[in-house]
C-alpha cells in the first residue's frame, strides 16, 4: 500500500485534484472540479493511460446529483486511477476525442441517466433503441422498475442513423438482429464494394435486461446470482469480480483454500471458453473434422465442471467471502488425472487443425487483423489484444486473489490475425491446465468461507475473464447495492471488430467474429 501512497504524492503534483483518497482495492479516487477536469484528462492522455471504464452514479456520497467516474490504468502500474467528477447539472463535456473508447460509455450514461455530453461527436442513443420513450432514463433513482410503454411507431427522421458510405459500386448489407442460426442478436451494417468490406458498423443492445438496475437494493449474497447471469461463459469471472469487490469493501480475508478453488474455476472457465472458440473457428471455415476434437474436449470439460460443482457453467458456487461449498479431495484428484490426459489430446487436436489440410491455414492467416495501434484507444483486452502484440493480462497487471504468487508469464503473439488468436488461445489453454494442476497439488486445508460483516463502501474490482478484462464497480449503502456497474471485455472489444474486418471479404466476417469471441449478453446488460 506504500506504493499507492507514493503514487498519490506523484499525482497530486500532476493532477490538480485535492483530497485524493485511497480506495479499498489498489485504486485511488481523485475528486476533481469542472475547471480542472480538462487539464487532468490531458495529463492522463499524455501519460499514456488507458480508459478502462467510465460510469455514472446518482447521489454518491454527499453529492445529490450525478458523479462521473473515469477509471484509468497505465501499463506497468497495478493501481487504477479514478477521476471522480461531481456534475453541477446534467451536462458534461466529452472526452471521446482524447479517449475514443469513451464514446460508448458516454452514450450509455446519456441513456441511463440523461447526462448530456454536448460536444460529443456521436450523440446517438446506445442501449435504448428508438421505440423507448423520450426522457426515459432507467438508471435514475427516481425510476421504478416497471413495464415500459414503448412508442408504437417511429418517425423516419427518428430512426437510428448509421454511418453512411456513398460512392460508385458501394452497397449496404444489413445483417441481423435475427440470424439464420441460433445465435444472439446483433445488427451489422456493412458497406461493401463487390465482396470487400469498406465499412462496418455494429449495433448491439437488442435484449437489454436492466441488470444494473436489477442489482440495486439487493444484498451482496442475492446480487452474486445476478453477476453470474451477465454472460454464461463468464459466470465465474463475473461472480469472482463481484465477490472480490464486496470482500475488499468489507476488508474480509478470504481463506486461501477458497482462492485456490476459485482459481481452478476461473481457469476451467477459460479452458472451456477457448475450446468453444477454437472449435468455432474451424467449423466456420467448414472443416468440421478438425473441429470435432475441440467440441468433444469442451463437452468433457463441462462434465468435469458438473462433477466438481454441480453445474456445467459452475453457477452457484462462488459467494462473497468465499465459496458456497467445499470441493472434496477425490473430485479434485479426478480432475487432475483427467487434465493429465487432456493436454496430450488437446495438442493432438491442434496438430490436426494445423497440418492436416493446407486449406485451414490458408483461411486463417492474414484474415481479420487487429492493428496494435488500436489497442490502447479502444482499450481492447484479452486474447484479442494479446494476439496483436499487447502485453495486457489482468491476472498480472492487477493481480487478484493468489494470482500474484503464481509467477505467470505473459503470452503474446504479434500478427493479430485469426491464426494468431487461435494459437494464442491454444497456448492459454495449456497454461490454464498447468495452473489448475499446480493449484490442486498445493491445495491447502481449511474452510472455504470466512464469516464477516459486510460493510458499506465502494470498490473497483478487475478480473481477467476468458474474453479479457472485466471491470466491476460496486457501491454498497445500508447493506444493499446502491450502484453496480459492470463492463465486460466485449463492451470494448466489439468496437475492434469494426476495424478488423476492413479490407476483408464478407464471407470471412463470421470467422473473424468467431475468432474475437464477443459476447452479446456481456455487452447488453
Amino acid at each position, binding site marked *: 500500500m506504500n506504493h499507492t501512497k507514493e503514487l498519490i504524492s506523484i499525482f497530486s503534483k500532476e493532477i490538480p485534484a485535492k483530497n485524493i483518497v485511497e480506495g479499498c482495492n489498489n485504486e485511488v479516487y481523485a475528486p476533481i472540479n469542472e475547471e480542472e477536469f480538462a487539464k487532468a484528462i490531458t495529463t492522463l492522455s499524455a501519460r499514456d493511460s488507458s480508459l478502462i471504464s467510465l460510469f455514472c452514479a446518482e447521489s454518491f456520497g454527499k453529492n445529490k446529483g450525478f458523479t462521473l467516474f473515469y477509471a484509468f490504468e497505465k501499463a506497468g502500474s497495478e493501481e487504477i486511477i479514478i477521476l471522480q467528477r461531481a456534475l453541477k447539472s446534467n451536462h458534461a463535456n466529452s472526452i471521446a476525442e482524447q479517449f475514443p473508447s469513451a464514446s460508448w460509455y458516454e452514450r450509455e450514461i446519456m441513456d441511463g441517466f440523461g447526462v448530456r455530453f454536448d460536444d460529443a461527436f456521436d450523440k446517438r442513443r446506445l442501449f435504448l433503441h428508438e421505440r423507448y420513450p423520450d426522457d426515459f432514463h432507467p438508471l435514475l433513482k427516481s425510476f421504478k422498475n416497471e413495464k415500459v410503454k414503448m412508442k408504437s411507431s417511429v418517425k423516419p427522421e427518428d430512426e437510428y442513423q448509421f454511418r453512411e458510405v456513398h460512392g460508385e459500386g458501394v452497397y449496404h448489407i*444489413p445483417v441481423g438482429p435475427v440470424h439464420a*442460426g441460433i445465435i444472439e442478436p446483433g445488427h451489422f451494417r456493412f458497406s461493401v464494394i463487390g465482396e470487400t468490406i469498406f465499412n462496418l458498423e455494429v449495433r448491439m443492445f437488442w435484449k437489454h435486461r436492466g441488470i444494473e438496475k436489477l442489482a440495486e437494493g439487493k444484498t451482496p449474497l442475492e446480487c452474486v446470482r445476478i453477476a453470474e447471469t451477465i454472460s454464461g461463459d463468464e459466470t465465474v469471472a463475473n461472480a469472482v469480480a463481484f465477490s472480490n469487490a464486496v470482500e475488499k469493501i468489507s476488508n474480509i480475508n478470504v481463506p486461501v483454500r477458497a482462492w485456490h478453488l476459485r482459481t481452478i474455476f476461473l481457469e476451467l472457465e477459460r479452458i472451456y471458453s477457448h475450446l468453444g472458440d477454437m472449435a468455432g473457428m474451424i467449423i466456420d471455415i467448414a472443416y468440421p473434422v478438425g473441429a470435432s476434437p475441440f467440441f468433444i474436449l469442451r463437452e468433457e470439460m463441462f462434465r468435469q465442471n458438473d462433477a466438481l460443482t454441480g453445474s456445467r457453467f459452475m453457477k452457484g458456487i462462488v459467494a462473497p467471502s468465499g465459496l458456497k461449498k467445499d470441493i472434496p479431495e477425490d473430485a479434485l484428484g479426478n480432475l487432475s488425472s483427467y487434465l493429465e490426459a487432456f493436454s496430450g489430446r488437446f495438442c493432438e487436436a491442434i496438430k490436426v487443425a494445423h497440418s492436416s489440410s493446407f*486449406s485451414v491455414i490458408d483461411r486463417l492467416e492474414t484474415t481479420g487483423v487487429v492493428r496494435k495501434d488500436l489497442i490502447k484507444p479502444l482499450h481492447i483486452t484479452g486474447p484479442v489484444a494479446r494476439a496483436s502484440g499487447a502485453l495486457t493480462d489482468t491476472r498480472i497487471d492487477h493481480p487478484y486473489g493468489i494470482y500474484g504468487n503464481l509467477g505467470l508469464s505473459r503470452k503474446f503473439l504479434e500478427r493479430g490475425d485469426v491464426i494468431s488468436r487461435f494459437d494464442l488461445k491454444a497456448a492459454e489453454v495449456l497454461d490454464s491446465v498447468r495452473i489448475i494442476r499446480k493449484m490442486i497439488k498445493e491445495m491447502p486445508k481449511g474452510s472455504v468461507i470466512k464469516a464477516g460483516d459486510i460493510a458499506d463502501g465502494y470498490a473497483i474490482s478487475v478480473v481477467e475473464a476468458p474474453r479479457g478484462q472485466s471491470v466491476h464497480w460496486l457501491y454498497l449503502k445500508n447493506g444493499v447495492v446502491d450502484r453496480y456497474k459492470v463492463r465486460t471485455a466485449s463492451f470494448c472489444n466489439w468496437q475492434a471488430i469494426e476495424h478488423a474486418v476492413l479490407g476483408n471479404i464478407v464471407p470471412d466476417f463470421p470467422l473473424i467474429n468467431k475468432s474475437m469471441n464477443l459476447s452479446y449478453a456481456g455487452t447488453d446488460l
Partner: protein
Amino acid sequence: MNAFVQYSVLNVLFAVLVSPLFMSLIKKVKALAQGRKGPSLFQMYYNLWKLLKKEVIYSSNSSWIMRVTPYVNITVMAVAALFVPLILIPQPVYGIGNIILFLYLLSLAKFFMALSGLDAGSAFGGMGSSREMTISALIETITIVVFAALAFALKTTNLHEMFLQILESNMLFLNPVLILISISVFIVLIVETARVPVDNPETHLELTMIHEAMILEQSGKNLALMEWSHAIKQLLFMGILINILFPWGIAVALTQYSIVVSMLAFLVKASVLAVAVGLFESSCAKSRLFHLPSLFTIALFFSVITILIEVFA
C-alpha cells in the same frame, strides 16, 4: 415409341425417388468422419415429407418469379433426368441426350433460382445470387471444355452414345484419358452441387452462403421442391461420372431381370461415389471465395490436356 415412354418413366422416376438417399448418405459419411452418429439415411425423405405438408409463405415484395421457380426447377431436373441414363440405355437413343442441351437446361434452372434469390428483396438472396452467378460465369466455360474433351475422346456429343460406347469397348475403362476427364467431372460435380470447398451445405452463417442464401426465402412445399431438384441435379452429375468410369451393370434392354440388376448396381456404384464425395468434403476446409478459380483451373487443365492428347496423339 413405347420403349421410349418406358425408358422415360423408369429413368425419371428412379432419379426422383432415389436422389434424396444420396444427400443423406453424404451427410452420414461426413458425420461419421467427425465422430458423430449422423442422421438416418432416410432423413431427407422425412424432411421433404414434412416440408411438403407445410404452407408456403411469400415475402410481400416477391413477384411471380418466386412462385414459378420451384416448379421450373423440378420440371427442368425431371427433363434433364432423361438425358442421363441411370439404369437403362435405350436403343436407339431417340435423339435425346445432347450434352450441350443438358448443360443449358441446368443453366435455365440456375437462372430462375438466382432470379428468385433477388426477387424477395432480402440482403442475403441478392448476395447468394451474385456469388452464384460469379461462380457460374467461371465454371460454365470450364464445364463446356470438360464435356468438349469428353466429346473429343468419344467422338459424339450425345451422352447416351458416349456411355454405350464405353460400355461396349471394355478397353476404355483403362483409357487414361477418361480418368483425366473424371477428375474434371468430379470438380464440376462439387461446384454444381455447392459442396466444400466451394460452398458449405451445412452452414447457418448467412454471410458465407451461396446456394443456401438463394433459397433462404423459400418455404414449405416450394422449399421441398428446391431441395429435391438440388438432390436430382446431384444424382445426375453422379450418374455421368459413374457411367464414364464404370458403366457396367447398366441395362441395355428392357427386361425385368436386367432392370433390377441395373438398379442394384447403380445403388452400389452411387453409394461408393457418395462416400467418396463425403470423404472429400471432410478432408478440406472451405476455400476463400476469391481462391476458387484455382480449383476450377484444375478441371480446365485436365480437360485441355485430354483435348490435346485426343487431337495430336
